[in-house]
């Protein structure tokens, strides 16, 4: 610690280096320091009261406070506080600017600094601004708040929504009822009504479609993994629409189809009604992803014998890697195979095609035969065969477990 005997002057730019003492910790010292900067003539007793008002209890004697004041050169002369001009130098630019003794979710603040440092929100704001401009041009008669927002307003609104899950807020109404550190994080708080309106207006300008490129920008891998996520909607009211489940009950909801790369970075999302089978939409979906992300090889974690689907992918010049349903083969006997590799754990990897040739089946097969388990059969369209060595297929298929293990999107 820099000990400075005597009083500081305005030109003195030494900033106190707070370190934990035996009686006063760093935060307490910093708080005392900042209070003294606000009012250098403040008596020590009043100083302790002020600290208590900020919910920091300094369990030290006045004498000890005075010792610190003397150390910093901020002690006052005895007697009543005077009002002599220029008696005490006010804090110069090198000292404590602000102390916030209670900060909730400290890590989120640090994370926010990291995001700001990397300008993570710049593309989001750019895309939102673009969407707003496009809406203005397309609907010149429209007039609602979002169309007049400044970039900083757009940024803060989006940030409030962005940080909400990390602050333990899972419903918009909790912005009103739950303590949250948006004030320290963004500089001001938000009410749920404001954010609800903001969201509604974002929907109105179709901001979701505009923000899709922000996700795609992070895509690094050549392979895209597709995962479906069925979301049920539960309500006490009777629902008339949705997937028909057991006993004729009707489940309303939606299914999200999410594409991500091999690093787990989500790149695309689309929603479909829950009663539409994935096979009906997946080719069109993958075409959209291929256009957006540029990757043409897709992995879908399903054990199926989808010859028609494979043909459809092949026709669109897309690659698809899947597993073959166990009921569709009888192990190695069903295939004309060649041993291509033996993995470290003893698993033998074979490559081949159907033993009896099947017309209109463009697929190639890779069979991984573990030493003590049933063989796993992978199939891929010719595009996959071009992109990866057959020995790579089992690894490529197993890769994206991180995404599946990540938090659910209810």
């Amino acid at each position, binding site marked *: 610690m820099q000990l400075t005997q005597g009083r500081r002057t305005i030109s003195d730019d030494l*900033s106190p280096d*707070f370190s934990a003492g035996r009686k006063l910790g*760093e*935060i307490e010292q*910093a708080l005392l320091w*900042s209070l003294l900067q606000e009012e250098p003539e403040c008596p020590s007793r009043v100083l302790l009261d002020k600290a208590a008002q900020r919910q920091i209890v300094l369990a030290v004697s006045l004498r000890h406070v005075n010792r610190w004041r003397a150390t910093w050169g901020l002690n006052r002369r005895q007697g009543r506080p005077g009002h002599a001009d220029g008696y005490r130098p006010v804090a110069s*630019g090198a000292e404590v*600017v*602000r*102390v*916030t003794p*209670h*900060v909730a*979710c*400290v*890590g*989120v603040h*640090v*994370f926010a*600094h*990291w995001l700001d440092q990397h300008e993570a929100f710049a593309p*989001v704001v750019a895309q939102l601004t673009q969407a707003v401009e496009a809406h203005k041009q397309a609907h010149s008669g429209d007039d609602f708040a979002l169309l007049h927002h400044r970039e900083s307003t757009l940024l803060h609104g989006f940030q409030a*929504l*962005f940080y*909400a*899950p*990390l602050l*333990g*807020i*899972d*419903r*918009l109404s909790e912005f009103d009822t739950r303590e949250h550190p948006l004030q*320290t994080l963004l500089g001001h708080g938000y009410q749920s009504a404001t954010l*609800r309106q903001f*969201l509604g207006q974002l*929907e109105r300008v179709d*901001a*979701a479609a505009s*923000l*899709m490129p922000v*996700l795609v920008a*992070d895509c690094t891998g050549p392979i895209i993994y597709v995962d479906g996520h069925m*979301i049920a909607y539960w309500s006490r009211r009777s*629902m*008339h*629409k*949705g997937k028909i489940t057991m006993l004729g009950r009707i489940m*309303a909801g939606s299914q999200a189809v999410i594409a991500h790369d091999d690093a*787990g*970075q*989500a790149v695309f*999302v689309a*929603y479909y*009604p829950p*009663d*539409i089978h994935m096979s009906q939409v997946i080719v069109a979906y993958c075409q959209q992803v291929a256009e957006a992300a540029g990757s043409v090889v897709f992995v879908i974690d399903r054990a199926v014998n989808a010859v028609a689907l494979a043909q459809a992918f092949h026709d669109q010049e897309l690659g698809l890697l899947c597993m073959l349903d166990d009921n569709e083969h009888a192990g190695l006997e069903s295939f004309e195979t060649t041993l291509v590799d033996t993995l470290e754990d003893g698993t033998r990897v074979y490559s081949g095609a159907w033993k009896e040739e099947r017309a209109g089946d463009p697929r190639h097969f890779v069979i991984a035969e573990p030493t003590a388990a049933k063989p796993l059969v992978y199939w891929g369209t010719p595009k996959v065969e071009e992109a990866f060595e057959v020995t790579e297929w089992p690894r490529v298929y197993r890769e994206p477990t991180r995404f599946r293990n*990540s*938090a659910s*999107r*209810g």
Partner: protein
Amino acid sequence: MIDHGGLDINHGRKTILGPDRHHQRKQAQLEQSLETAHERVAKKAEAVTAQQAKVAESEAKGHGTRLEQRQGKLVTLEHELQDAKGQHAKLAAHVATLGPAGQRADRDFRKQTIMTIRTLFLENMLRAFMAVLLTALPITVSLEQVLGLLFARRGARMETSSQVVYWVNTAGLSLSNRRLLARIVEGLCAMDLQDQGKPIHVRLKDMPP
């Protein structure tokens, strides 16, 4: 961390227009039934023709009992043919009354896509942050550990003219978690974080609740 996809703000108040899939399903079923009925009529007609040939053969050969039997079966087959034709006509009428496919305004229960994008963007950013943090750490830490030990904890903040210091409250942490948090904090300090040009330092601190 809570389920961070949970901001459910669409309560099915909106509607989305789309093809009437109930109509599509009904039509597909009816068409399949119609095709089956058509096949059945053809089969029955074929059977009647074959039976008529047999009756004619019996008549030509002067059969007695066999002719009766064959005539009896012919009557049964003709009835069945009439029934099959009737069923076919009924299904055809159903198809005709079904009308052209329309549109249906479904209640929209989808989460707003913008919120899903937000969630995915947040996950992407967390993943990128973790990747940088892990390069600065000699140990492996999971995202869940960082969220629980660092993101969710309280602390304090001090800003001076030359630096920003964050203290993380370690009160109530077990010794092992405290050690882990200390490692994470070391990693954060090595990440060269800055706030408006001022270096950010993160420290641990035992604070009263």
